[in-house]
């Protein structure tokens, strides 16, 4: 299974573009979403470095995976992201303020106003895949929707991933599993993670189609995911999509990748990152100029800055909030402890 792409690293068109990629407004929307995600990312890191955000997992360099997948989904579908898919969450309607709240250590960030049925990020690696199978089971009963879960390359070594992939295959569940293969699971490179030729090959064991695409090409990601979602929606079952990208940043703000990764490797991958190629394509084919670029950067900057201000101005929940959503109704047993925690 070759790694398919529509744009090369410089933005040259490699093959016939899918219909959506001939529409300038669609391409601009995809580009805007990736710039927005990267702007959010930079602000989140800045906030963390100045003690105003918790440990944060950067999505730098992988914006095309997250945005491309989310852009292929319908509103009623359910997104089950890992902790590095901010771009997709933003595309789906989660606000930057809500994401800051989450990464700032406030549960209210998961109570987003946008896609109410979407799952919050899944921190335990690969556990979102069984959830996606369950969501897809509920969808199979009603005949509406597709569950789309994303995990990293490391997640494909977990039993949760294989076991969920297997039941998706066995039951023809309407689920799409996407691997954001950013080549690094903290300090373990993809080459040491598994002897499998590609991660998409892992679909074979479940009897599912598996496909590998260039995860730095948002057109390829969206196109492959859309085909997979289309099959699921048509009752043809699940698909595994591997998006080959690269983690340009550290694993999280608590990590220092220079301990295990050469700078030269990172520099080389900067030449393949996803934004430049789409910008070059927009410039060459769709009249994108400096004015458009500057206006976009300014509006993303302003939006993210304003969101950060609102986040920083949000008072923490009272201590009693720990008990507010523990159960639908708080058992007497625990209620006494809520009194002790008080409103401090």
């Amino acid at each position, binding site marked *: 299974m070759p790694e398919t792409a529509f744009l090369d690293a410089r933005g040259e068109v490699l093959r016939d573009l899918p219909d959506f990629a001939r529409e300038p407004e669609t391409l601009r929307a995809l580009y805007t979403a990736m710039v927005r995600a990267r702007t959010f990312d930079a602000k989140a890191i800045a906030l963390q470095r100045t003690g105003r955000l918790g440990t944060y997992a950067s999505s730098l360099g992988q914006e095309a995976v997250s945005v491309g997948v989310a852009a292929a989904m319908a509103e009623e579908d359910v997104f089950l992201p890992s902790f590095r898919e901010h771009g997709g969450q933003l595309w789906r309607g989660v606000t930057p303020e809500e994401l800051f709240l989450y990464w700032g250590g406030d549960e209210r960030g998961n*109570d987003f106003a946008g896609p109410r*049925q979407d799952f919050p990020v899944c921190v335990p690696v690969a556990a979102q895949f069984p*959830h996606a199978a369950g969501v897809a*089971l509920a969808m199979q009963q009603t005949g509406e929707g597709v569950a789309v879960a994303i995990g990293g390359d490391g997640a494909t070594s977990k039993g949760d991933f294989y076991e969920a992939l297997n039941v998706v295959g066995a039951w023809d569940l309407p689920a799409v599993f996407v691997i954001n293969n950013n080549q690094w699971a903290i300090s373990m490179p993809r080459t040491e993670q598994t002897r499998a030729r590609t991660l998409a090959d892992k679909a074979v064991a479940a009897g599912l189609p598996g496909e590998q695409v260039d995860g730095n090409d948002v057109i390829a990601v969206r196109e492959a995911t859309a085909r997979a979602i289309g099959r699921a929606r048509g009752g043809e079952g699940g698909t595994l999509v591997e998006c080959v990208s690269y983690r340009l940043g550290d694993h999280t703000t608590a990590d220092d990748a220079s301990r295990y990764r050469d700078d030269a490797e990172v520099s080389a991958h900067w030449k393949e990152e996803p934004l430049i190629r789409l910008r070059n394509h927009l410039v060459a084919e769709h009249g994108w100029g400096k004015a458009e670029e500057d206006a976009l950067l300014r509006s993303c900057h302003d939006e993210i800055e304003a969101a950060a201000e609102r986040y920083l101005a949000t008072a923490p929940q009272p201590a009693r909030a720990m008990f507010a959503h*523990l159960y639908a109704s708080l058992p007497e*047993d625990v209620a006494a402890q809520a009194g002790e925690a008080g409103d401090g």
Partner: protein
Amino acid sequence: MAEHTMIDAIRMALSRALDEDETVILFGQDIGIDGGVFRATNGLMQRFGSGRVRDTPLSETVIAGMCVGAAAHGLRPVAEIQFMGFLYSAIDQLANHAARLRNRTRGRLSCPMVLRAPFGGGIKAPEHHSESMEAMLAHIPGLRVVVPGSPTRAYGLLLAAIRDPDPVVFLEPKRLYRAGGEPVEDTGAALPIEQAEVLQEGDDVTLISWGAMLTEAREAVETLADEGISAELVDLSSLKPIDRATLRASVEKTGRCVIVHEAPLTAGLGAEIAADLAEHCLISLLAPVRRVTGYDTVMPYLRLEASYLPSTDRVLRAVRDVMEFA
């Protein structure tokens, strides 16, 4: 009226739930045409179809994880784990996801699911099939853990668990599955899910137990009555949350307490109950709270099983000790 065993009562409750709520769905290993290894789901696939009573591939992780996804997206999954010894790989899904989805989304998503699992020894099963590790589950915030002590209570508590808006682990004492029957009326009435049940009132000493050990506790209560000792017997039923008010009220009345459980002693639920009574009932206590439990050993193979499980004699010795203390 016909007598029903606990396994009959569980099947009746599952059938009633499937009948009254179309969002209820059953899945687990071999629960379809085979009716489950203990036959709890016997005939349900034939009646409700293989779409609602589904055999899953052999994966406890997926069974528990699918419950989370399905419950969050509108179903009420009731899943079976064949034996508690195989539940450990599902604990990640229970602790990290099922029990905290409501909390971490501030109520946006919730997880109305039931995970049923037979637990405990006494049926001469192979290794890994006889453990009582309920305390591990009772330690998980956001979860409910329920253990029925009779067919009637199994019926009412399982219906309560299925209708509950939060995740419930329903541990079924498999020694009681076919230990005896009683008439169970299929009224659809649930029992209060977090309430302990006073099975017999008494004045001199409180026995607290749950699940299969209620058998030995009940035998002890009868023997003690012959000796002129009036024992109160409480079926804890809800292991999380604990109905502390009922336990405290009983011990404040009797002044003495013996806790009986099959699970190992250290960090077992008896410890939590004893600590609670020490904190809240010290003035009423006439003797130290005693625990009669399984040993802190690996569950032995079947030849030594009877030596591991607390016997009626051990319960009686503990009660006589506290009676002699004061």
